[in-house]
């Protein structure tokens, strides 16, 4: 700039001498258009996440309304009433099972003493008479309950038929076919009068229950003397239990007397029966239950086994590869483990069916392994088989992330430790691992997320029995077949009627799974961010 220009009026600021003609679309330059295009693509992830939530809700939300309706019919048609009565019978069955268990123990003790099974059975004849008498006492109550069961399901069927008819009529009306609609007769069920037939049996039931109580009391007053003295205390305990059981009868009757057929079923009941329900029972003639607990417990159990195996192995391998192994080993191990992560889960599941299940069962039957709780087991496909295979899935995830975390520990930490005279082992255990602990924990959490969401392995190998395992047996529960949340969706989704309560229940399970996964993810990120060590 020359000084000659300084005194002239300044040109309007910011105008360029060379103006480039720009093409504009909707007021945007080409570059802005491109930017918007890319930005739009970036939003896809957000949109997909939103759509997942939306559509799972859309298909699943109606479940709670439908389930409430189903619970309402359950109450009004008297099914609930009969189920309260049934509790007496069920508890009696549990007591008889206790009796069988005593007999089994006595028989084992006798045969261990060198008696043949026939001789031992002969010695237990008095006990058998006792247990038959005990078992037969319930027959009258059982007969009554089974009659009422039929009556109640007949009422429920009637109600269902009426519902179907109503829907049919509505469809005719919607289609404008008035004549056909008029031809459909809807027999409305009058629950109050229908259920009278069931509740009317209460005095009779009370009598039966009193008789039943006295009969039990009579039977247990004189306990048989077992040929095995050490089992006798259990028999005493049995008598005690029976008396407690009989003492509970008035409670049962009181509940029946206070039962209100038309008590409203709140929506929260529908919700709690899903979250805390211990039964997942579908297509039953009596009442369908959609309780997620057995599935959740199953998922949790297989994940526990998987992490129990995968965490030591995965973290151990990460420490080894990053801190101990020679560079040549590193170059070979890391791709190998990455390669393992590429094995498709369905192939692993197939391997479990074809190979691992049988192998584990054979191993459980070895004499040398009999000290392990739950060994030997009879089911080839169970929580253990699935858990072992899930470990194969979890290990690469845990390994990769934990190795990353260890790798991110600043070099100065290690050097300082060595400079202070610490050995390699001390450095690893006291410096490296604690410093990367947040990363390792989040690796484990992400591994958990991976196995809890895994479908094919558990569908193929977990045994698919919908029941909460019997935890009274301790660790042996882990050798029982289970069913999982992911497995149930995969198994039943293809067979359900679209829009039915069962279909919606599966979507709610999916929704639950989705939120569990999000929570785990969130925790993992939170832990990493909160406890990250920064140098500076």
């Amino acid at each position, binding site marked *: 700039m020359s000084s000659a220009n300084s005194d002239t009026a300044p040109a309007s600021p910011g105008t360029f001498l060379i103006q480039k003609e720009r093409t504009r679309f909707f007021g945007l330059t080409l570059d802005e258009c491109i930017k918007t295009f890319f930005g739009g*693509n970036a939003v896809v992830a957000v949109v997909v996440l939103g759509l997942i939530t939306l559509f799972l809700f859309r298909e699943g939300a109606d479940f709670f309304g439908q389930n409430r309706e189903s619970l309402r019919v359950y109450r009004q048609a008297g099914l609930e009433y009969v189920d309260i009565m049934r509790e007496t019978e069920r508890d009696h069955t549990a007591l008889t099972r206790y009796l069988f268990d005593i007999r089994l123990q006595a028989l084992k003790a006798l045969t261990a003493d060198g008696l043949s099974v026939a001789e031992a059975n002969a010695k237990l004849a008095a006990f058998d008479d006792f247990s038959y008498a005990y078992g037969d006492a319930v027959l009258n109550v059982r007969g009554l309950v089974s009659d009422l069961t039929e009556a109640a399901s007949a009422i429920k069927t009637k109600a269902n038929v009426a519902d179907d008819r109503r829907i049919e009529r509505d469809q005719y009306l919607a289609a404008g076919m008035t004549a056909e609609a008029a031809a459909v007769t809807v027999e409305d069920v009058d629950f109050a009068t229908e259920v009278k037939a069931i509740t009317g049996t209460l005095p009779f039931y009370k009598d039966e229950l009193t008789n039943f109580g006295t009969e039990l009391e009579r039977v247990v007053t004189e306990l048989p003397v077992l040929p095995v003295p050490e089992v006798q205390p259990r028999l005493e305990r049995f008598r005690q239990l029976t008396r407690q059981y009989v003492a509970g009868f008035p409670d049962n009757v009181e509940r029946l007397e206070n039962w209100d057929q038309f008590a409203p079923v709140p929506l929260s009941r529908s919700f709690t029966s899903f979250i805390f329900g211990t039964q997942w029972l579908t297509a039953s003639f009596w009442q369908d239950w959609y309780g997620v607990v057995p599935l959740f417990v199953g998922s949790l159990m297989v994940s526990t086994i998987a992490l129990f195996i995968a965490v030591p192995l995965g973290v151990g391998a990460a420490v080894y590869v990053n801190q101990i192994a020679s560079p040549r080993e590193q170059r070979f191990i890391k791709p190998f483990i990455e390669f393992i992560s590429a094995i498709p889960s369905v192939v692993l599941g197939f*391997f479990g069916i074809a190979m691992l299940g049988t192998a584990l069962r054979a191993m459980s039957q070895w004499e040398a392994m009999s000290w392990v709780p739950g060994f030997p087991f009879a089911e080839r496909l169970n929580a253990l088989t699935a858990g072992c295979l899930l470990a194969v899935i979890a290990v690469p995830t845990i390994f990769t992330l934990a190795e990353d975390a260890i790798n991110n520990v600043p070099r100065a930490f290690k050097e300082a430790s060595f400079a202070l005279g610490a050995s390699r082992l001390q450095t690893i255990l006291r410096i490296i691992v604690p410093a990367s602990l947040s990363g390792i924990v989040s690796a484990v959490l992400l591994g958990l997320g991976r196995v809890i969401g895994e479908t094919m392995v558990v569908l193929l190998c977990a045994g698919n029995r919908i029941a909460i395992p019997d935890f009274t047996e301790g660790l042996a529960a882990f050798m029982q077949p289970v069913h999982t949340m992911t497995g149930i969706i995969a198994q039943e989704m293809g067979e359900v009627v679209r829009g039915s309560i069962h279909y919606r229940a599966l979507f709610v399970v999916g929704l639950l799974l989705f939120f569990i996964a999000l929570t785990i993810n969130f925790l993992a990120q939170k832990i990493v961010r909160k406890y990250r060590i920064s140098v500076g």
Partner: protein
Amino acid sequence: MADTVSNPFAAKPSAGRGFESAFFWVFRIATYLILAAGAFIFADIVIKGVPTVAGAFRTIDHFPYVTNTFLFEAPETLYVFEHDGEKLEMGDREYRAFREEQTAAAAAAGQAAPAFNATTYVYSSGGIWPCIVGTVLLVVGSMTIALTLGVASAIYLNEYARDGKFVRFVRLAILNLAGVPSIVFGLFGFALFVLMGPKFGSVANPDMFSLRLWPFHLYLNFEGWGVSLLAGWFTLAFMVLPVIITASEEALKSVPKGFREGSLALGATKWQTIRKNVLPYALPGILTSSILGIARVAGETAPIMFTAAYVVRDKLPWEGLANATDFVFQGVMALPYHIYVVSSKIPQNDYTQRVQYGTAFVFLGIVAGIALTSILLRNKLRGRYKW
């Protein structure tokens, strides 16, 4: 030499040292246990699967003169029966032809028709050609969608976006999307694409939500795509999207800043810079890492169970199409789903085991091959660009 001076700084053996090396051995064993488990699974499937594939080579009388009935034929029912004191195994078509021939021969000889007490085993004969085709179609389609979306998002996140609330939100969504279980993707794909997928139509569908595309005489009917390739493509694409975005961002990040600054300083626009000076260098990285995404897509079963996979289908995807658009609206057989079907839905015995191991071997071979390519390519690439 006896008089070599020993290293005065060498560590002396001590109890602590022994303890240390014992500890290291524990870690070493843990590591090699993992490798052994992986190798064992792999070996089991290869050893038992190879005979099925290797035993299925047949000669034919036209080019290429050799074919493999397991790889290139559709699944059939297996018939096992005794004939003239010989135990024979035949596929469905072969068995029918054989029976007719025998019956005709018996009739000509004036004898009663021979009895065939055949035991049948579903899916145990023939091959898995339709499954291979289906898997390839699923992978190609979903990867095309995922790469387009994923690379574009990565370009935005790495090149255009400034760190802020929005970008952090997007990143959070991507991270969370990566953690969503595959079966949930399956449910989502079913609810959105199978039940609600929009189709073009010249008339509005009265039963469904439908949108008129003004000003054309065209309607967007949300009537659902059914169990179809298209539904599977989108489901799988969304599932693998986080993998692709992360991989692409990594590759874009590794291109030095100077490349962009130089180009911009020369007067190139942002887009010209990206197209000419960033993408070419990032592309190899993007592609190799994306191959790992391919392995994931090919290996997943749960998302396609309700969206794209058929248990069995007679026709190959390109056969019997009324018009070209029907191609994307048909379900296919897929290898992972076929493995699931043959290993859990049919009774187990020696005959079915052959086809199970064969299918698992072919599938594992394909997926492992893809993964191996990715790993090797990446290792090679690491040494290639140094800046």
